[in-house]
């Protein structure tokens, strides 16, 4: 047990120095409205949650799949030390894959960022019994409109999921990183890191984990922002405690440089980057980004996209 703060001393002195201002009460009528609102929102979310019949829509937060992979999973990376951001673990024999640099793809307000990736079933929020799931996302460029995500078993004959297939699940996407916000981020790694530390000030469990998690959450959309992937990679490896590892494989076996941050005694799977262009490839063993581009409408094939290959 953690010993109690000696009450009657510092607490009392603090309360004397600055007493709590008044006892503001929530108006009973407003309280009823807020409660009713919460209950109806919960009802909505439950109606759309996994386990309900196909065709009903699940509203999820856009960064969910990647954030989930980066935060919830218990790890498999062997880490040799946690002293600084520059430790390199060599995995002999692995040859790095190179996907090259992304082309310039213009994105207009009103369009949708399109992402296609494979991931292990448990990270894809897919209800079907499939070990390898493909997930395709359409996220509004301005972040203000509703987007779409499709998940289903990874197709063998075609690149994309068939939206009408009975195994394909539809989810509405609310939120997502605003593409314009990403374009405003500094691409100098030092400035970027300083910015991210400010942005996450006070967040936990440690400030380092908060910054690392923030980076994990924007790596995919950052691929199409010139210079940002590499800046995020270089910023992430400067975070104290981040371990750099070569020869790390993503879900489809592409090999790149891994960055991992261990937290609370557990090590999470590494984020995998292309060893020469520093484009984000996926999460060690769990996800792999296959294609990223821009689409005119949610659910439609992209009008312009970059194929990162199938490894």
């Amino acid at each position, binding site marked *: *047990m*953690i010993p*109690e*703060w000696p009450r009657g001393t*510092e*607490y009392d*002195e*603090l*309360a*004397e*120095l*600055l*007493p*709590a*201002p*008044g*006892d*503001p*009460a*929530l*108006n009973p*009528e*407003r*309280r009823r*409205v*807020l*409660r009713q*609102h*919460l*209950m*109806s*929102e*919960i*009802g909505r*979310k*439950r109606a759309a*949650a996994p386990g309900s019949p196909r065709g009903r829509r699940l*509203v999820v*937060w856009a960064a969910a799949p990647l954030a989930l992979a980066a935060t919830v999973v218990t790890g498999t990376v062997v880490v040799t030390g946690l002293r600084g951001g520059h430790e390199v673990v060599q995995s002999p024999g692995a040859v790095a894959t190179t996907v090259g640099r992304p082309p310039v793809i213009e994105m207009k307000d009103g369009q949708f960022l399109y992402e296609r990736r494979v991931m292990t079933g448990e990270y894809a929020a897919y209800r079907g019994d499939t070990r390898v799931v493909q997930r395709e996302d359409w996220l509004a460029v301005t*972040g*203000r409109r*509703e987007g779409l995500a499709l998940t289903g078993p990874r197709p063998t004959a075609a690149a994309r999921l068939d939206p009408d297939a009975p195994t394909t699940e539809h989810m509405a996407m*609310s*939120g997502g990183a605003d593409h314009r916000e990403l374009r405003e981020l500094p691409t100098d790694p030092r400035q970027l890191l300083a910015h991210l530390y400010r942005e996450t*000030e*006070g*967040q*936990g*469990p440690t400030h380092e984990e908060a910054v690392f998690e923030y980076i994990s959450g924007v790596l995919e959309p950052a691929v199409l922002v010139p210079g940002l992937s590499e800046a995020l990679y270089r910023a992430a490896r400067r975070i104290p405690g981040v371990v750099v590892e070569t020869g790390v494989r993503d879900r489809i076996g592409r090999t790149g440089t891994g960055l991992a941050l261990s937290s609370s005694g557990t090590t999470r799977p590494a984020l995998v980057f292309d060893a020469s262009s520093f484009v984000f490839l996926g999460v060690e063993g769990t996800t792999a980004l296959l294609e990223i581009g821009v689409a005119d409408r949610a659910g439609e094939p992209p009008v312009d996209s970059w194929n990162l290959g199938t490894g």
Partner: protein
Amino acid sequence: MEHSLRDRVRAGDPEAFGRLFDTFAPTVHRHAVRVTGNWSTAEDVVSLTFLEAWRLRERVLAEGESLRPWLLGIATNVMRNMTRAARRHRDALARLPPAAPVPDFADEVTQRLADQEELVAAQRALSGMRRAEREVFTLCVWEGLDTAEAAEALGVTAGTVRVRLSRARKRLRALTDAERARMPAAARHPSVGVPTLARHTGEDRCAVDQCAEERRR
């Protein structure tokens, strides 16, 4: 009781969330008004806190006592970055009926006006602290969390909470001393050692405002 409430919250039982709201909404609201100094912002904080609680329900530990530290921790996070929280729950907030511009009861208006002056004075003092100190101070001293509970709410160690509290005390002490030094003797609070930063009623209110003017120069 609390034990099973935790289980039901984790399992996403709507009734448990209704109970959670009934039990803790007033606490979250009071905390938000005191911290932000703004009544309508505080209502948004209440909504966002419970929507976030629903989103994060699986992170509730199976074991533990009151869920108050957990909810106040979520409220703290919401207030750190209202824009992000509001964006995350944009659609839900859009469905929230707006508050009536003027409360229905005249008494409440009077009460709010009285509180408002205390809130403004408290805001001035809080602005002299760093955010981390302010969070620990308001949770521990105003909401009465002990160091272990505040540590749970903020995701830091109890030791960190103590250090931040101690810093908050130093800053407040310095602020109070500075204020006393600038105050004309006649306007000082009659009894020694009684707070000067808030709870000003009656005649000494204008003296304090005058001090605030001086600080701004």
